[in-house]
């Protein structure tokens, strides 16, 4: 299937490669936040993780990356955050090369908390690394913890928390710097179904309230359809975008949405798109 780019639009850069003034972009249309064109990633061992990746993400979107294991979802996310360099093509985040914008929150599959630090100190970390003193950070850290419903656990250690609570701390940590872009790499894959759907709702609420752009990696069709405004379906070997399926703008979505015919139909469409990527590929899920 050919890559379809619904939101194809001109680059915000002029011919000289200088950045256009982003303050001019305050029109009705949401400005572009992430632009990837013809992006390749070849690892040192010769693995082609991603080839010819094209993607445009506008501010305020909730985009899911959906695809089988090994199709380069994590790689794509890490390239956007600047943790991995790309081998070819172009990536811009807010008009800058990746890694220059500190305005990014990142949530890993595991909660990835520091076991030796309290909940407060874990959430304080990004601010501490920026040189913010503890008293100055107090308000922001507590607000971030409150936004994920964890107000009374400042002095707890990660080992005292359940899996879902640890993930909440991890989200609070990503949010404490008040980023505009939140990257989440299969954040709830290890959680039980109940916790997972509750956190899904919380992330959606956070997205709306904070006016975030979210890129959410998952291999669950249901999760991607429930959450996102657009599902980006990826295929493996080499990793690439094979389909983009826009979702209805029927936010705020509640648990009820999961029971509607529209939801079932969307899941069916996305499932089918995913199925088509898996010809001749082992299905692990």
């Amino acid at each position, binding site marked *: 299937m050919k890559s379809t780019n619904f939101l194809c639009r001109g680059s915000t850069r002029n011919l000289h490669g200088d950045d256009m003034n982003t303050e001019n972009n305050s029109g009705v249309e949401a400005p572009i936040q992430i632009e990837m064109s013809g992006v390749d990633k070849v690892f040192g061992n010769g693995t082609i993780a991603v080839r010819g990746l094209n993607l445009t993400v506008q501010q305020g979107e909730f985009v899911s990356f959906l695809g089988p294991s090994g199709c380069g979802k994590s790689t794509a996310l*890490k390239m956007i*955050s*600047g*943790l991995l360099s790309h081998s070819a093509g172009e990536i811009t985040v807010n008009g800058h090369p990746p890694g220059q914008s*500190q305005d*990014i929150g*990142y949530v*890993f599959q*595991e909660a*990835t908390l*520091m*076991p*030796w*630090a309290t909940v407060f100190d874990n959430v304080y*970390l*990004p601010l*501490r*690394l*920026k040189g913010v003193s503890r008293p100055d950070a107090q308000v922001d850290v507590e607000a971030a913890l409150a936004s994920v419903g964890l107000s009374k656990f400042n002095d707890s*250690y990660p*080992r005292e928390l359940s899996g879902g609570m640890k993930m909440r701390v991890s989200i609070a940590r990503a949010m404490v710097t008040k980023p505009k872009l939140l990257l989440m790499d299969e954040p709830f894959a290890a959680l039980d179904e109940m916790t997972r759907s509750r956190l899904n709702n919380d992330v959606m609420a956070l997205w709306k309230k904070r006016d975030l752009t979210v890129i959410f990696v998952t291999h669950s069709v249901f999760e991607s359809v429930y959450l996102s405004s657009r599902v980006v379906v990826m295929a493996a070997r080499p990793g690439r975008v094979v389909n983009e399926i826009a979702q209805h703008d029927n936010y705020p979505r509640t648990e009820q949405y999961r029971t509607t015919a529209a939801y079932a139909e969307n899941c069916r469409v996305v499932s089918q798109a995913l199925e088509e990527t898996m010809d001749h590929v082992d299905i692990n899920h």
Partner: protein
Amino acid sequence: MSISTTDPTGISIEKRMRRHAQFDRLLRLVIPVLTLLSAVAMWEFLVWYHEVPHYLIPAPSRIAATLITDWWSLMGSMWFTVKLTLMSLALAIIGGVALGTVFAMSRVVEISLFPFAVILQVTPVVAIAPLILIYVPNTFYALLICAWIMAFFPILSSTAIGLRSADHNLRDMFTMYRASPWQRLRYLLIPSALPYFMAALKIAGGLALIGAVVAEFVAGTAGQNTGLASRILESSFRSEIPRMFAALFLVSVLGIIIFLITSWLSKAVLGHWHESEIKRER
């Protein structure tokens, strides 16, 4: 109707659990002490009953008497051994942590220097000690080097492994938030390495004492201001067996104290978070 937390005797389950835990803790202390005391009593009784001469096996009471009569000379020797052990341990920590940090930062340095560290570790100290005693004119320094060799390696290798053990996602996060090298060390690498370091310290503390004693055995009673090992040697030449036992007893006490201190330190540093030091409630 709610489920009752009170059993027929009227004592709440919680209270009984707490009492049980206290009792458990008491038993943990009382049982080993009682066992030890009865073993000593048995020893005393058997020596008395069979009229074993004290130059073969002295009774505990006789060893205690020797401890008292020879108190000051034994304390002097003990102080010497303590000094030797602590100084070598301190040097092992300084050297091991410094080199371990360099190893963790540079593969090249590690690959080139690691063989030397291994050779130092696997060659028995007893075998190298005579050489060191020849080349280093000051006996104290020679002994110090021997004890240091014993304690150095565990600290070195654990520091190097520990500093590398930091979670790779956390490393990525520190990169993303642009942590300075110092911040990375302070907030990520050192805490990650601490459990490894504490485990090594427990081992190195014991090894430093062994090194100090063994080296002194090899050196013999050459120096005048000498440690417990020399007292043991000297007493064996003079067949003063009770004195030998008394010195031996003090070496054991020293070892136990080092073990207790390092264990306490480990608990104090890791107790609030690391698996190895957390008491699980059952």
